[in-house]
């Protein structure tokens, strides 16, 4: 695998060059609040490569908070009255720059949902396939990062096309795929690194992994039956503080629940795919008023059972969590998935 060296001073210029072939997305920090978000980099904005983490995950790049999936007119005078049409979309190449390894691993988890043998969501899949992921290794993990316990880690390469490692004045770039190589060529930053680069990356990786003190384990969760965990009496205590606000699901890079809504203005209408949350009381309510998950305990249990048990059993490929820590950081009542995982593991 090639390791390239990119002088940080050349990076901004390289990104401008890459813009001729790619739409660029990267973390942008708001000076007033100090929060960063993934935004499209327009008007010469450079990605903030020093940002510690983005508040919302970059899942919005393939799975926006709301998206038009079909268009229609209810005007009976038109030929296509009441027929649904697929709207024009822009799936030209996109580069997601500065994405953390756990967020890239999260895309692979989302892919399991949106790209199945029987059905393929074209909106998510086409957007995802248009992306080249230029990752940025986490050299200084924070206290809430437990990615080494999931199938990710601070220097993990799954789902990435390039892994950039901050090495002082330079970035060392591990070129993981052809897509990644193509991007770096387009940016004109393809100078090879010296022979010691590979081992320097390994050193930094080891140091970062050792810095991660927060861990979870779920080997016992797999061994228990669904009903054993479901019927446990631990849920009332776990769920008490929850206010069903949905923040956890919105900041989580692996949460994918959505709603389909029609909105018409005059006679022109759109069918939309919007973020939804299993935390909301009306998520599962039937038209008759019957609600299979009508208590807070049901809903909180559903979220953690889905992430840590149903997904684990269904795909046999780890838990539906990449250890980014955003839900812990942003939960207004400090419900901690690590604590819940621990309780489920020791049920």
């Amino acid at each position, binding site marked *: 695998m090639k390791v390239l060296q990119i002088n940080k001073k050349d990076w901004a210029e390289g990104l401008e060059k890459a813009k001729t072939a790619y739409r660029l997305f990267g973390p942008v920090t708001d000076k007033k*609040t100090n929060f960063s978000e993934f935004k499209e980099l327009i008007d010469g904005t450079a990605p903030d490569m020093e940002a510690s983490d983005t508040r919302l995950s970059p899942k919005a790049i393939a799975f926006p908070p709301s998206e038009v999936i079909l268009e229609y007119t209810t005007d009976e005078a038109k030929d296509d009255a009441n027929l649904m049409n697929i709207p024009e979309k822009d799936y030209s190449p996109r580069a997601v720059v500065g994405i953390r390894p756990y967020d890239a691993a999260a895309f692979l988890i989302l892919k399991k949902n949106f790209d199945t043998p029987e059905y393929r969501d074209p909106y998510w899949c086409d957007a995802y396939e248009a992306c080249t992921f230029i990752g940025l290794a986490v050299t200084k993990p924070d206290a809430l990062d437990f990615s080494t316990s999931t199938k990710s880690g601070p220097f993990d390469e799954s789902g990435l096309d390039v892994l950039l490692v901050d090495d002082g004045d330079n970035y060392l770039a591990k070129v993981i795929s052809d897509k990644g190589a193509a991007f770096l060529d387009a940016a004109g930053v393809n100078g090879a690194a010296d022979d010691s680069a590979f081992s320097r990356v390994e050193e930094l990786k080891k140091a970062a992994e050792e810095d991660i003190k927060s861990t979870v384990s779920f080997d016992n969760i797999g061994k228990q039956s669904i009903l054993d965990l479901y019927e446990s009496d631990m849920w009332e205590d776990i769920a*008490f503080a929850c*206010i069903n606000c949905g923040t956890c699901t919105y*900041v989580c890079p692996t949460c994918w629940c959505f*709603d389909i809504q029609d909105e018409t203005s005059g006679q022109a209408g759109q069918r*939309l795919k919007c973020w939804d949350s299993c935390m909301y009381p009306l998520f599962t309510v039937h038209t008759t008023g019957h609600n299979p998950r009508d208590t807070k305990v049901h809903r909180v249990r559903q979220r953690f059972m889905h992430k840590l048990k149903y997904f684990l059993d269904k795909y046999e490929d780890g838990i539906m969590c990449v250890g980014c820590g955003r839900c812990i950081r942003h939960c*207004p009542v400090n419900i901690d998935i690590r604590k819940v995982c621990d309780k489920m593991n020791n049920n």
Partner: protein
Amino acid sequence: MLGYIDKIQEISERLLKDGSVDMIIGFRKGTVPLMNEPCFIKDPADVKTLVWDSNCGINLANYLTGRKEKVGIIAKGCDTRNIVTHIIEKNIDRDQLTVIGVPCKGMVDRHKVASLVDGEITDVVESEDAILVKSGNSQIELKKSDVLQQNCSVCVHRNPVICDEMAADAVDEQTGIDRFAEVSKVESMDTDEKWQYFEDLLAPCIRCYACRNACPLCYCPTCFVDENRPQWVGKTLDPTDTRTFHFLRAYHCAGRCTDCGACVRACPMNIDVRAFTKKLEKDVFELYGWEAGLSLDERPPLDTFKPDDPEEFVK
């Protein structure tokens, strides 16, 4: 404030043991600095897990809706005012509650603290008037009064308005502060400035409804944003829909809001939702001389009709 927890634990244990309550609602220690987790205790032996410090900003009255048990609830000034509103609105019976009142000099705003500190906060040690914040290899001592939640800095109801047990002696109320200074600032802007101010304020909103869910007043079984026959509000991040949600929610809370700050605490995007509710609090105060939740004997003005109501249309 630091010593309060001993009294709180003692009261809680007594109430559980003598059966006056089935459960105590309070806080237990959080897993991240500057956060605590609301919890309930049913076993007197568990009262040792209860904590009380300057990170108890969440309004526990939010957890009373629909409860059938006898509840002991640990409540600061603003929380007790919401409890009064809950009782008036028949959300819970006075007889069900044993209010463990806690006088409060204000809760710390963790976002304010984070903005004054370089790097990730790893530990916080609290003393009577200050917090020692550790991050990386450095530490900084901050005066609590400098990093209070905004609503706490203008609070004039620090002491519980109803209570059955007091966890400490009453504290002095703040005097001589302009409670509505932030509102006046916006009121004095010209139209374009005001429009821009509100547009910028709501731009980050992701319609997660955390503000609504954290608010003790928002307990409608089906919120107006979730109605579909007819559908009042769309589901996307369309600015008109977002503004409709925030304006209407503020109006639904008018005359009932106690400025507890739970909405701002809950918002993941750090939006100052209080910009709307504080304005309505000012309006209700100026129009009706009303402050929410101070007395069990009076109903809020938007709930009642008086012959001397100022509006022309009722005359």
